[in-house]
């Protein structure tokens, strides 16, 4: 059944080209996507009617549709990644839609998980691409088989099979002309065609021409990794992280319980029903494609699946918020699917046929999409009327609303794994696969435990769905007035019979479910016709009247919901006719081994598992939920208590501290330090040192002189000279002074008034001191020394010249 209806290659798209394919698995999921978007689209019309930002919502609603379908159609992990990222970003707008602080916080979590997951996945893709030189899903699985079987680098025979796989892909795309398989020696599936596009271009078997420029040489393991196997495992683990984050796999499930309650209900239905499945899609590609026969990988996935299913269900039992419970339930159901995938790998690794596991996992994927569509839309119906989701507040809302009850009940019975509904079929298959593996390996206690975890989780599923159903549809609200108001919100049909027609007379209208729905549809048609005939000015009046006894859901919305809900039992009842065929379509994608044999779903052995789960569920409900998780509210009623300790939140406990405190603290401190201190300090240090060195060099000659004066030119301490050493001055001055005195005493001069003059001796003494000081300075100075040296040199020179001339 590996039929391919469509195979499109768009070379050059985003650099590496895009490869879309429509085979059985992808067909099923495209149909599911179309169905889900149609139903939620119809539902959105009413749900979104009162929001101002409708336009934004619808744009991103359909953009996400395109991206999601793109993910499911992709036949190349590169294409998958492109659509996956687009999907993450467009769906962000859903979560942030309300712009309340809670939604923005949830959106932040969602975006952080999506971005980090995307980056990690991208790293995995790089490693994979580095190893294989291609990201075509079919090719990498062949190449991975070679790596896992130790047949790496490729031998000729394997190269042929790769070439064949490529040939299949290429010829389907109508590009056979470029195919050049050259099976000789190792790694010959790749042929190098030089010249055409420059010397380095490597064409990988002529596949997508855009690969040409890459020039990377596939086939050699990355040097960072000791073996190709190690690199493949690393790549696989990184991709598992990325896809697992989207799927909601433990421990990356944190975004689901936050984002789902905050997003508008139709968006939550899609987030939970199908966006998580894109993650599962990736996990299938990695698990079944790359590590399909690897025991340890299978074990990893199975254990992760078991933990995820248990944790999710456990959280759901404790939750007292309608949409949060459903979100936790999604985590749990994803766990079921992962367990199925893990079992598929494990069974293949021991050489058994893994049909049961594959079909179980695939059918549970499809089923879960359908359950969550119905259940979240029911929650949406509650929310759009009450704008509340707390179980204590919405308690009793669903009473006397048969359409809503029908839809919710179908979803609950389906997800609870009740026989005759579709969930039972897929859960039974997964359960059987666990049993099969357990028997094959001799039934060790660990696998018995796994089986019981599985059954117990099934029980918890029953318990929390029972909790929701009883709270919304069976019990009455603690506040009688509120209950009356809720009862008044019946549909047009119900109002006619319940509220206006002396409401309590319920027995008269209890009919079979089918006829009820039919009647309802008739009523819907009538009321719709009436709506259109009303003149516009009366429309407001009628809306005001509607507020008095408000219609809780418009007819077309009701119809969409009921039809979507009706699919579940129909699938369950015609399991061999419908579900087996769906499984036939999809199983090839999982690289299934062994032959499908018809499973008698309602055989006693299979029913036993379901029965055990249901019994556990009922016991849990009465013992734990009604016993431990409810408390008296003081007015004689019992209310649902939030017993989950608020500090116990993986995100707030671990991830946020790491991401928001530890990482910024480390990087911020390091770089803040660099920025604030290190660079300026380095600059300052550099300037200081260079200034110092510069100054030192500037004053280098001074230092030379200084050192010379201290050593070679050391000054002799001045000899103490006698004070009256100015002999010449005294002698000459005395003579002059005596002469002056003599002259002044001459008789013909006596009458003249001669100016009083300084004695010549003093002046001469001063002059002599000055002269001697100068002589001292000159004699002691460096230049005088140099001059003397010069004189000496000159004398020597003259002597030499004289000597030469003389001789």
């Amino acid at each position, binding site marked *: 059944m590996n039929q391919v209806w469509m195979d499109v290659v768009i070379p050059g798209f*985003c650099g590496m080209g895009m490869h879309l394919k429509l085979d059985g698995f992808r067909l099923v999921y495209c149909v599911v996507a179309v169905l889900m978007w149609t139903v939620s689209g119809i539902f959105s019309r009413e749900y979104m009617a009162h929001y101002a930002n409708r336009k934004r919502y619808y744009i991103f609603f359909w953009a996400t549709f395109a991206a999601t379908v793109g993910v499911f159609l992709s036949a190349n992990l590169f294409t998958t990644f492109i659509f996956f990222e687009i999907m993450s970003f467009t769906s962000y707008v859903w979560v942030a839609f309300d712009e309340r602080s809670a939604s923005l916080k949830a959106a932040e979590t969602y975006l952080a998980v999506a*971005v980090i997951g995307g980056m990690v996945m991208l790293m995995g893709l790089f490693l994979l691409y580095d190893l294989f030189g291609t990201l075509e899903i079919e090719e990498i699985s062949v190449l991975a088989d070679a790596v896992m079987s130790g047949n790496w680098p490729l031998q000729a025979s394997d190269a042929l099979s790769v070439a064949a796989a490529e040939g299949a892909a290429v010829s389907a795309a109508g590009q056979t002309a470029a195919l050049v398989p050259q099976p000789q020696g190792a790694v010959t599936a790749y042929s190098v065609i030089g010249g055409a596009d420059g010397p380095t271009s490597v064409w990988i078997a002529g596949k997508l021409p*855009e690969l040409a420029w*890459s*020039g*990377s*040489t596939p086939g050699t*393991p990355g*040097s960072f990794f000791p073996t190709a196997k190690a690199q493949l495992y690393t790549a696989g683990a990184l991709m598992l992280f990325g896809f697992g984050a989207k799927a909601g796999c433990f421990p990356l499930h944190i975004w689901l319980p936050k984002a789902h309650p905050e997003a508008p209900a139709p968006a939550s239905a899609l987030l939970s029903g199908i966006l998580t499945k894109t993650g599962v899609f990736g996990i299938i590609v990695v698990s079944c494609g790359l590590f399909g026969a690897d025991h340890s990988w299978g074990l990893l996935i199975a254990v992760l699946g078991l933990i995820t299913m248990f944790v999710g269900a456990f959280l759901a039992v404790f939750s007292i918020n309608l949409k949060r419970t459903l979100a936790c339930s999604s985590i749990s159901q994803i766990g079921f699917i992962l367990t199925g995938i893990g079992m598929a790998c494990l069974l293949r690794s021991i050489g058994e046929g893994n049909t049961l596991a594959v079909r179980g996992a695939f059918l549970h994927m499809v089923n879960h999409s359908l359950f969550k569509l119905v259940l979240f839309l029911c929650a949406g119906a509650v929310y759009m009327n009450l704008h509340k989701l707390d179980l204590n507040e919405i308690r009793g809302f669903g009473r006397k609303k048969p359409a809503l009850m029908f839809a919710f009940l179908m979803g609950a019975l389906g997800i609870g794994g009740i026989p005759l509904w579709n969930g039972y079929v897929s859960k039974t298959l997964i359960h059987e696969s666990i049993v099969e593996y357990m028997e094959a390996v001799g039934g060790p206690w660990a696998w018995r435990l796994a089986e019981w975890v599985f059954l117990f989780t099934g029980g918890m599923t029953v318990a929390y769905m029972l909790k929701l159903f009883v709270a919304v549809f069976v019990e009455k609200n603690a506040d009688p007035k509120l209950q009356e108001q809720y009862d008044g919100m019946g549909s047009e049909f119900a109002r006619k019979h319940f509220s206006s027609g002396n409401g309590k007379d319920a027995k008269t209208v209890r009919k079979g479910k089918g006829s009820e729905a039919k009647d309802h549809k008739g009523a819907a048609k009538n009321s719709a016709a009436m709506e259109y005939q009303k003149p516009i000015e009366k429309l407001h009046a009628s809306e005001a009247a509607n507020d008095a006894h408000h219609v809780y859901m418009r007819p077309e919305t009701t119809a969409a919901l009921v039809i979507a809900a009706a699919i579940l039992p129909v699938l369950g009842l015609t399991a061999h006719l419908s579900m087996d065929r769906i499984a036939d379509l999809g199983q090839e994608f999982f690289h299934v081994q062994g032959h499908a044999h018809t499973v008698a779903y309602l055989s006693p052995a299979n029913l036993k598992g379901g029965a055990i789960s249901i019994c556990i569920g009922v016991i849990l409900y009465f013992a734990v939920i009604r016993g431990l998780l409810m408390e008296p509210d003081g007015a004689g009623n019992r209310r649902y208590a939030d017993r989950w300790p608020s500090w116990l939140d993986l995100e707030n406990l671990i991830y946020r501290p790491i991401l928001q405190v530890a990482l910024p603290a480390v990087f911020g401190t390091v770089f*803040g330090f660099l920025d604030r201190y290190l660079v300026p300090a380095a600059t300052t240090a550099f300037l200081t040192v260079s200034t110092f060195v510069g100054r030192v060099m500037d004053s280098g000659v001074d230092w030379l002189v200084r050192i010379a004066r201290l050593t070679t030119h050391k000054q002799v301490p001045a000899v103490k000279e006698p004070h009256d050493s100015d002999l010449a001055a005294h002698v000459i001055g005395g003579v002059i002074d005596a002469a002056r005195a003599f002259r002044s005493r001459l008789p013909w001069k006596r009458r003249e008034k001669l100016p009083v003059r300084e004695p010549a001796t003093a002046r001469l003494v001063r002059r002599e001191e000055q002269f001697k000081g100068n002589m001292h300075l000159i004699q002691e100075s460096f230049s005088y020394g140099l001059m003397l040296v010069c004189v000496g040199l000159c004398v020597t020179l003259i002597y030499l010249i004289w000597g030469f001339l003389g001789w």
Partner: protein
Amino acid sequence: MYDRLLAVPVFLPIVAGVALLAMNGWIRREKRERTMQWLVEALVLINSLLVAWLIAGCGGRSGSLVLFRLYGQLTVMFRMDRMGSFFAGLVAFLWPLATLYAFEYMEHDERRPAFFAFYTISYGVTLGVALAGNLVTMYVFYEMLTFATFPLVMHPMTTEAARATRQYLYYSIGGAAFAFIGLVTVLAYSATGTTGFVPGGMLDPAAAAEHRNLILFVYVLAFFGFGVKAAVFPLHDWLPKAAVAPTPVTALLHAVAVVKSGAFAVLRFTYFSFGTALLRGTWAQWIVMAAALVTITYASTMAVKEVHFKRRLAYSTISNLSYILFGASMMSPLGLAAALIHLLAHAFMKISAFFCAGAVMHHTGKNYIYELDGMGYRMPVTFACFTVSSLSLMGIPLFAGFISKWSLCEAALSLGNEMGGGAGGAVGRVLPYIGVAVILYSALMTGIYMLSVVVRAYFPGVVQQMKEAVGGGSDGKAAVIVSQGKSEANQDPSWLMLLPLVIFAVVIVAVGIHAGPVLRFLALIGGEAG
């Protein structure tokens, strides 16, 4: 004839700019600014068309034109080879649009003639760097670029601007000194006796092998010397400071022309002068690669911490420039091609982001990111373009940034493979893988620092969240603020600003979706030079 024309696009804007400076007083006295502006635009456009014609006409041959000899073998020479035509084409595409944008941005400015004069001169000088046929010419124009652009940084004439200018000058001139050492060494060991660019390097292998460590040391010096303009850590500090300049300058010069000239110069002398054969697998390669990686990590972290809109973008520029340098430091054909594709992609994304920031600043006077709540509704087109460039910077598929980051990572991994044989020692074995991890880390940080702006602009509920977090302010008040934000009239700028923005956004998406032709062209460059 064709070869002679090569000098025209370089000197036409320079001459025109100088003439504009000479007529500065007359223009202002006669109030002919508007005429002057349109003449400038016409001139820039004609010049760009001329460049386009030259690129189209060059075909396979690479004509060259020796303008004059400085001394001996030191010639000023232009040549149009593939790599030069790539950068010249990029610059020629952006300049007319940026000039158009500058009309509206500078409409209230006092000294418009001076601004446009230097803006036009820078155009010619940048083309000079792009078309330089040898290392000497490139060095000359590289120095000239510093002097042609510093008046633009100083344009606001504030103390802050003066400080930034001073720092810019110190760093650039200092860096050029180191680059000069590289120039001299290349000339000394040249196999041809000239510094003309030869794909694959032109050092004399025998002579170079003798003084291998010396040449490697000089290479590292020259890398950091030219790296100053490419803002490599620790020589990056001038770039965030220079964000005081008018936005057309920050956007075109400090996101494209000047900084890309630095990166281009690094690519040129790595692949066309020193040659990769000599450098690959040596300690010099690991040093420069480590420097690029440190810069990426550092700058993307600092961008998260920065709250000033333009400075945050400036830090983002630093980190993205080092992506290019990371590609350059791979010394492989793939590395060169990846560096060039990132050069192209980043040019468009960052100029677009800066122009959006400028439009916001010009029309609302908002400089800080926390003031941007709800702006997405008031300036719808501007913020649509900003969102495109943010997503592209993050590396989201469908946008150009994804292509370039993918190419870089692919090149890094293939280098890791190549070094597996032990050619690069222990460091070489690990460093390329660290490089990939660093790029992903940086992408995450980019997500934080760009998307936080986008989220603020489109989901003004954040206001409310902040109010709640503070504890003050009632919801009603916040709601009023939000509704005000939404109800205010459309404040989008006029077509002068919007046209460039929209064109850039279209190019980003076009390259992101159909990158084949560009990648093939770049593979040719990588093939001949790597």
